[in-house]
């Protein structure tokens, strides 16, 4: 598995966990009857901060762990190549495109809740849900492209 694939796998795991956390919190709020704007926007803040911090930490940890594993395997100075060649760039662009398409569909579905006479809070909750889901779909598509080729 290349360094880029490891990074994508870490990102996929991170965003899946954050998505799980977000869904659990939303369902808890609905059950508790505390599904109000203050709690929802607080959850927005937590999820966005988690997304940024965990992504940065994940990248650094992947780098360190890869270097340690390589050093143990080869018993030499680790040589982690973080170069992104044309194939990596194309896969990244295709993954980003799929993420945008997924998120665009998500935004459209979120807006539909207005047509169904739902309060704006439902739309805002769905916006973050589809944002996280789009990131997960993008990461899966990147891994798929690395494995299957194109």
């Amino acid at each position, binding site marked *: 598995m290349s360094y880029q694939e490891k990074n994508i796998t870490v990102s996929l795991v991170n965003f899946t966990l954050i998505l799980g956390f977000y869904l659990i919190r939303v369902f808890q709020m609905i059950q508790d009857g505390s599904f109000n704007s203050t709690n929802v926007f607080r959850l927005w803040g937590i999820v966005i901060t988690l997304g940024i911090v965990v992504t940065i930490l994940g990248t650094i940890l992947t780098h360190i762990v890869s270097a340690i594993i390589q050093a143990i395997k080869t018993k030499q100075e680790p040589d982690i190549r973080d*170069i992104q060649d*044309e194939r*990596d760039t194309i896969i990244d662009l295709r993954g980003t495109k799929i993420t945008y398409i997924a998120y665009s569909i998500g935004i459209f579905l979120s807006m539909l809740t207005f047509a169904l006479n739902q309060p704006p809070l439902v739309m805002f909750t769905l916006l973050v849900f589809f944002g996280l889901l789009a990131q997960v779909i993008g990461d899966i598509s990147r891994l798929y492209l690395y494995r299957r*080729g*194109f």
Partner: protein
Amino acid sequence: MGKSRVRNNIRKLRFFRDEMTQQQLADRVGVTRQTIIAMEQEKYSPSLELAFRIALVFDVPLGEVFSYDPEDDSN
């Protein structure tokens, strides 16, 4: 998706260059070893520039490294 229609002789040419490793070829053309592996497995068609760089490393014409299989074009 899947197999590319661009065929190549990279594995054979590496063999005739004293079993040049994938990493050595990758370093000389400026890509990752994974990209060389993907090309050898015909899962990735390189850009024209990379194709020329690979031909230059082996010191052969481009057509000797890469060929195009138009089999599926008629479908």
